[in-house]
């Protein structure tokens, strides 16, 4: 499968390629005990397959979100896409160039500034000893693009774009609230004129009213600069709000991905349905929720076949033995589920309550 994909994606195809394409991405971690323990206790090496067989596209100017419970590998995908981890298998393409196989820093260099990351914890991702203007100016300095007065002016402009004041540049990160710090992170990402932002739970540490400010800002910047986002979150409502496309991950695998309205209205994979049914929301439709029994299995020792089969009400012998492939559905989604493939799982429509009335 991987071989076939590689043959069909030459660099020349850049024109009709989406801005970002991920094919059959896998990232394994060696979680074995130290060598001596392994020898004495006669234990083999252990690998954690954090991400396995993940493929998706992100067109320019769009938002692709990954959702899933903790440990499903969504953050690992984010880090592999920006190049913080090297993929064990598979490729990451940016504008048709395979950036995941660059061997030297020199080759990666032109792409570094165009791909930036925003992290969950705005307290940990800003250097506490640097003034905000230096934090924001750093990506520009790194490329020697501007200096002196021009640099100061650019930093002021960037701070204004994220709704901070240019005078805030003289302050240190601790003088800001969580939401303002996340704005600084965004200004820093914009400083290098990034086109593709990978946002790993950017609002999970923030209160709802601040979250709304940041989400609004991110959408506004996307419109202004035609930014492309890979958005990682466990909050389905936030994901619905920001995304164009949504992928659902379970135990390192992408079980379903589709255009957001398709995914939320016509969820196909049993895990997607379970997620949509269990998340408490403000609808209060009074629907009786059937909490799914069981928990996410240990990823070091995942179940055979389909990773979801122990919790799946539709699992049969084939699900226990054979890993489902991701196949397109008539609605334009991609679903990795034997039950869907065999037509055992009819399409179900999910309705959402009308918008809340405001007093």
């Amino acid at each position: 499968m991987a071989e076939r994909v590689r043959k069909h994606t030459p660099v020349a195809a850049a024109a009709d390629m989406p801005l970002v394409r991920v094919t059959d991405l896998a990232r394994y971690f060696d979680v074995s005990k130290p060598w001596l323990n392994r020898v004495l206790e006669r234990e083999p090496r252990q690998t954690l397959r954090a991400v396995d067989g993940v493929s998706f596209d992100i067109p320019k100017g769009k938002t692709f979100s990954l959702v899933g419970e903790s440990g499903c590998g969504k953050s690992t995908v984010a880090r592999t896409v920006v190049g913080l981890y090297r993929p064990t298998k598979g490729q990451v393409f940016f504008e048709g160039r395979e950036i995941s196989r660059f061997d030297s820093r020199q080759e990666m260099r032109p792409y570094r500034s165009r791909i930036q990351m925003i992290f969950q914890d705005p307290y940990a991702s800003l250097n506490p000893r640097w003034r905000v203007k230096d934090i924001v100016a750093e990506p520009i300095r790194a490329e020697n693009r501007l200096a002196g007065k021009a640099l100061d002016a650019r930093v002021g402009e960037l701070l204004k774009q994220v709704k901070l004041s240019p005078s805030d540049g003289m302050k240190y990160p601790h003088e800001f609230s969580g939401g303002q710090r996340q704005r600084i992170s965004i200004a820093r990402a914009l400083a290098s004129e990034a086109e593709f932002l990978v946002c790993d739970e950017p609002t999970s540490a923030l209160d709802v009213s601040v979250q709304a400010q940041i989400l609004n800002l991110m959408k506004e910047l996307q419109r202004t600069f035609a930014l492309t986002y890979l958005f990682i979150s466990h909050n389905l409502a936030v994901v619905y709000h920001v995304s164009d496309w949504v992928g659902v991950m379970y135990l390192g695998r992408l079980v379903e991905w589709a255009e957001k309205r398709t995914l939320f209205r016509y969820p196909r994979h049993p895990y997607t349905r379970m997620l949509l049914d269990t998340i408490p929301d403000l609808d209060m439709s009074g629907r009786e929720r059937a909490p799914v029994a069981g928990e996410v299995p240990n990823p070091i020792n995942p179940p055979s076949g389909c990773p979801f089969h122990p919790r799946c009400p539709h699992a049969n012998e084939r699900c226990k033995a054979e890993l489902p492939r991701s196949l397109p559905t008539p609605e334009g989604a991609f679903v990795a589920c034997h039950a869907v493939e065999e037509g055992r799982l009819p399409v179900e429509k999910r309705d959402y309550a009308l918008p809340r009335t405001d007093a």
Partner: protein
Amino acid sequence: MAQPLLQVRDLRIEIPTRNKVLTAIDGVSFDVADGEILGMVGESGAGKSLTGAAIIGLLDPPLRIAGGEIILEGQRIDNLSYARMRRIRGKKIGAIFQDPLTSLNPLFTVGRQLVETIMTHIDITPTKARARAVELLREVGIPAAERRIDSYPHQFSGGMRQRVVIALALCANPRLIIADEPTTALDVSIQAQILALLKRLTREHGTSVILVTHDMGVIAETANRVAVMYAGRIAEIGPVREVVRHPSHPYTRGLMGAIPTMGHDIEQLNQIDGSMPRLDGIPPGCAFNPRCPHAFERCFKDQPVLLDAGPTRAACWLYDTARLEAANG
């Protein structure tokens, strides 16, 4: 009408600092009826956890209750000695916290912790206490309870640990459970299981719950009534459905519009500019006045009290009857 299980009257909690005394909770009053789940929601620092901690008598010094009353089953409990409060805690009020691992002693099996708690509050033989512990574990949905009772906390997964903590809180059949962010550390599928469990327990035992959380979705799904807190005060209190669908206080209205919901296509979320004031910067009058689109002179002078605003009660001068009458005519 019978007396409510818990009455909190004009509660005030202060933090003395070197320069001045800060007020963390200011004039908070509410009731909890038998078998009711009262949600307390608010942004971080709004004082929702402090209110819960004050009720179980677990305020960390230098925090202190500076005024008001907390009445449980007609008895004042805010001025009890540590030793007497200890008898009530666990027996009448149970507590569930966010991180189940810190609520359990890692060195003892969960069975030993359950038996110890049961025997502290109920006069019962060790054998019977153990039988009750198994029964409790079964009740909170732990499979193979008679075997798992001899496991240590680290041998349980996060969701199962939270179930053990709930069993621990239920040991002496308390009338009231304070659940402080009980599902925040858990995954959504586990969260749904724990919330369903809490709802079932209140239904079957008539236990009341104060559910403290920042997640309005959890409240909408679980609670009967909700108190929305802002800067140490209750901004609005009322039936969940009304507060979510027809909020009255400008803050609640802003907050509800700021929460994204599935299935609703909107370009912009409602945005409340600015942030909640810090304790040393609460403005005079209404704490929300710097961010409120409807603020008028009185909001900057007088601190609003809870006023009838349709089906809910809101601490907002917009609902002052004198003003409403003047406006009408």
